[in-house]
């Protein structure tokens, strides 16, 4: 089954990512690889088996390759490398057997864009009205929000350099990517007013 599933290469709306360039002016905006994503819905007492489901709402666990973001009391967004999708589905099914839940493959619905660099929060704040300061949105945060006129999920990974993942729906990817690129240009510092 695995073999069949991936025989046809995926055509990504923003194209295949090129090798990461050095952050230009403190910001790098990079479309993600073809990844797998699942929306997990589950109610009732949480008995974490293989999945870290018991973390607070609006947090993400894992690293930038495999992550579980809790978006609501009964909603998790899960991301991982493409090849691990079937394994996850099987593991989850085993883990949650007998419990009312919904695990829906949305790998093709979602498009990821990584926003990295010192100016990352400023760039995101061009369209995201949330407080992205370290106190309000520290590394490990995840939430559903807006970027301009598009709905996104915003995830902040840990790391020395501020590093965010923007997840949007496929048909919004061109807009979201364009919005971020425009914001990156507009966020470049111009000239400090000399204090006299």
């Amino acid at each position, binding site marked *: 089954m695995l073999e069949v599933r991936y025989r046809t290469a995926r055509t990504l709306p923003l194209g295949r990512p090129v090798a990461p360039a050095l952050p230009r002016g403190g910001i790098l905006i990079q479309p993600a690889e073809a990844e797998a994503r699942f929306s997990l819905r589950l109610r009732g007492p949480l008995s974490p088996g293989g999945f870290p489901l018991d973390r607070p709402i609006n947090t993400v666990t894992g690293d930038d390759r495999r992550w579980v973001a809790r978006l609501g009391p009964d909603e998790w967004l899960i991301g991982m490398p493409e090849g691990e999708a079937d394994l996850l589905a099987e593991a989850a099914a085993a883990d949650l057997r007998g419990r009312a839940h919904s695990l829906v493959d*949305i790998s093709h619905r979602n498009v990821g864009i990584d926003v990295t660099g010192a100016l990352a929060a400023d760039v995101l704040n061009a369209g995201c009205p949330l407080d992205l300061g370290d106190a309000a949105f520290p590394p490990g945060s995840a939430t559903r929000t807006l970027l301009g006129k598009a709905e996104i999920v915003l995830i902040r990974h840990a790391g020395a350099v501020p590093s965010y993942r923007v997840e949007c729906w496929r048909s919004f990817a061109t807009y979201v990517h364009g919005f971020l690129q425009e914001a990156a240009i507009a966020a470049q510092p111009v000239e400090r007013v000399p204090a006299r």
Partner: protein
Amino acid sequence: MAQPFRTSRGGRIDRARPIRFSFNGRTVEGYHGDTVASALLANGIHLVGRSFKYHRPRGILSHGPDEPSALLSVDRGPGRVDPNNRASVVEARDGLKTLSQNHWPSLEVDVGEVNDLLSPVFVAGFYYKTFMWPRKFWDKVYEPVIRAAAGLGKAPVAADPDRYANRHAHCDVLVVGAGPAGLAAALAAARTGKRVILADEGPEPGGSLLHDLTSQVDGRPAAVWLAETLTDLDARENVILLPRTTAFGYYNHNHVALAERVTDHLPAGGGQAPRERLWQVRAGEVVLAGGAHERPLVFSDNDRPGVMLAESVRVFANRYGVLPGRRIVFATTGASAYRAALDAKAAGAEVTLVDLRLEADCGAEPAELRAAGIEVLTGHTVLGAKGRKRVTGLVVAPIGPEGRIGASRLLSCDCVGMSGGWTPAVHLFSQSRGKLVYEPGLDAFVPGTSAQAERSAGAAKGTYDLAACLAEGDAAGAEAAGSQERRALAATPTATGFQPARVMPTNADPTKVRAFVDFQNDVTAKDIKLAVREGFHSIEHVKRYTTTGMATDQGKTSNMNALGIVAGQLDKTLPGVGTTTFRPPYTPVTFGTLVGPARHALFDPIRTTPIHGWAEAHGALFENVALWRRAWYFPKPGEDLHAAVARECKAVREGVGIFDASTLGKIEIVGPDAAEFMNRMYINPWAKLEPGRCRYGLMLKEDGYILDDGVVARVSPECFHVTTTTGGAARVLAHMEDYLQTEWHDLDVFLTSTTEQWAVIALQGPKARAVIEPLVDGIDLSPQAFPHMAMRSGTICGVPTRLFRVSFTGELGFEINVPSDQALAVWEAIMEAGRPHGITPYGTETMHVLRAEKGYIIVGQETDGTVTPDDVGLAGMIAKAKKDFVGKRSLARPDVVAKGRKQLIGLVTDDPKVVLDEGAQIVADPGQPIPMRMLGHVTSSYWSANCNRSIALALVADGRDLMGRTLHVTTPDGFTTATVAEPVFLDPKGERINA
């Protein structure tokens, strides 16, 4: 000599960096740090514009954002022309081209000035009184001519080439205004470590400290304290200091909008950087320290160029090193102008001061001036100004006992500095819905009860003493940051005495005096009195009748004088008259700032499917459906819409067509209670639908009217694959979630949007099966194994698919659901496989025609939010046995079950070539008197190539009872006739679909 009015030293301009710009074609020299106004004045240029209505020569009144007169067109380069810029806030820089406005043929010689001679005619409400008849002349003649003659600058015509940015920001304390109070507030808040944003509209923070050469703060000269304070704030990580940034709007929940002018002041324009940035700040607490505006004095010809505000003379002299005149007369009703007079004298001007107040009502300030060798005339009024394009003198006279006016005296001068006291800038406070209170001692409205988490400090609150402003700012900043700490700052005392005057006393015939209250709108004291006499007693009515307080300055200089005159005429107190509402923006904001990046491709998301690129490459034309862009039709060379659609329609019925249906909304409904949930949301029964089978579902709102429709497949006992209309996808999911979360939280069921997970390739036509047969694995496609309205899982071209056997055309058809990123590959493989069968891509127009031939409804076309299932002939789908579903009760309402409802029928025109207009009205008898009884309207109408005639669907009152009847349908030039028929025009038995 260039810049003859520039002082030899001093000011905050950078004399090492000269700049040049043009004014009406003439080169003007100045220095870095100048505004356009200060550079013009340095060159002795006072006449900079013509007034709005009378075309009177006008000069520069102020040094700040309240400037009503000096409005220039500023050209910053190709495509970058803006009208109505205030010369007092535009930073002068190399290469600017500035032009005065509202005159012809030139600023010096303006034929419009004839209006000034006719001023007895142009009284308040003149337009309303004069241009009444004939009525139709207003639109065609009067209004265009008046607009051309009056008005300010010309709107630019070229597209704006600049970039505009948007930034959301959060802070604990937002301080508006970086004068003494604002700086003290920011310092106090910053010390707590909380996040502080300090915004100031000027290029340099500092406010009044930028032109205060004599005060001491904390034991240092004010300028030194300012520099140290800015260095301190700048060094703090928790402070964002925003110069050139105007807080212009105060909205709910401490949402304050700021406009930052990022690059206009840079000679090179700033490259890729935005011209302006809109900051949307959500602040925990706000400190408003926006200062105050000086009031002009109202006397005859007070608008002559060279007559300006007293504090502005001081600013030009101290901050910009410019003396606006060599012989300056200050006219005042308060103490603050004395400081301006002293500074002007120190800068080298010959100075006289006239004060309306009696000597006994003044403080120590007259003595101080006399000691400096300045003549001070207390107890004197100003009767008028002399000069036309430039003031040449001021006529003053003593006021004797009982207000008798004594012998007048002409004081020759080339500049007048006037001061009628101060008005706190309460605009933002008022926008925040705070309540203003009138403070008689200040003769001003000041902030009263707050409605949001904000506080005012300093002159914005009516506090004018420097030490008091600093203390108030410090307290406000500390309090806003939740700190108990207070730091007192010693400062030189400020003289603040003041006596309000509405109109300067005069012995002239009041009907002859042209004493301006609102300089921008050419409103005189006489006009306001006339308006009151004519019955306009509310200040809001006076404003609209006379236009006082309107336009770009919104009455910053004029409102209190106008209010005072109205109150005086009505013999009321000022609070009895009230004040006009302060609305955003505080000062003019460009459209670019408000629009931000939302232009061109970023105006709105344009949603495209995975097949979009292929459709583009194959010549499709597109139509907008919600945010989606869908292929409309695929014309071959030489084909128009009609020809292309006719060909596509034939191809589907005779061979096979391929259609991108990816935009259909999809929802995965999963859980043990999925079927129960479906039963409650839809009118149809779902419990007995077997896995692998599909059903057409119809969904109502609570009012019983159709909300949406779509085919639903049962994937497994606990999983449904729901489809919705393209435009209804988000609405339907929200509708479902709403019920699930608020009404039926006991149901174990989850909804996940899969609209974009699955792309949908619709393959329709008698040859559809033959085309996909070689591509599909794991599914038996035979009619027996895979009947109409079934769904199977398998693979196509190796890609996992949910394959639906469904049809929106009435033909044998499949809707192939594949993961989006693999859809293009599958589409191309199907095209290849279909080539021998003549496969034809078709668009939404053909889809519409094909479904209309079968009488399938489209939600939003046959329905309009007032249509029930029975109205469109679908009552049979209602599951009678179900206890309840959303909308069920409403279907029993008397109005819904009554006779006379509009019902869906087909219309066959008697002339088969006539295609009815969609929306056309239908009547039984066109001969009946108007207004006729409308029976209904056409909902869908097309040319059907397959029927070789026109077809139409319509909603008609009791339409199903009218089968075979002839009705009359409106056309653009009359009526045409059509016969009522069943709403199915092709294959009424549905044999083709089951092939």
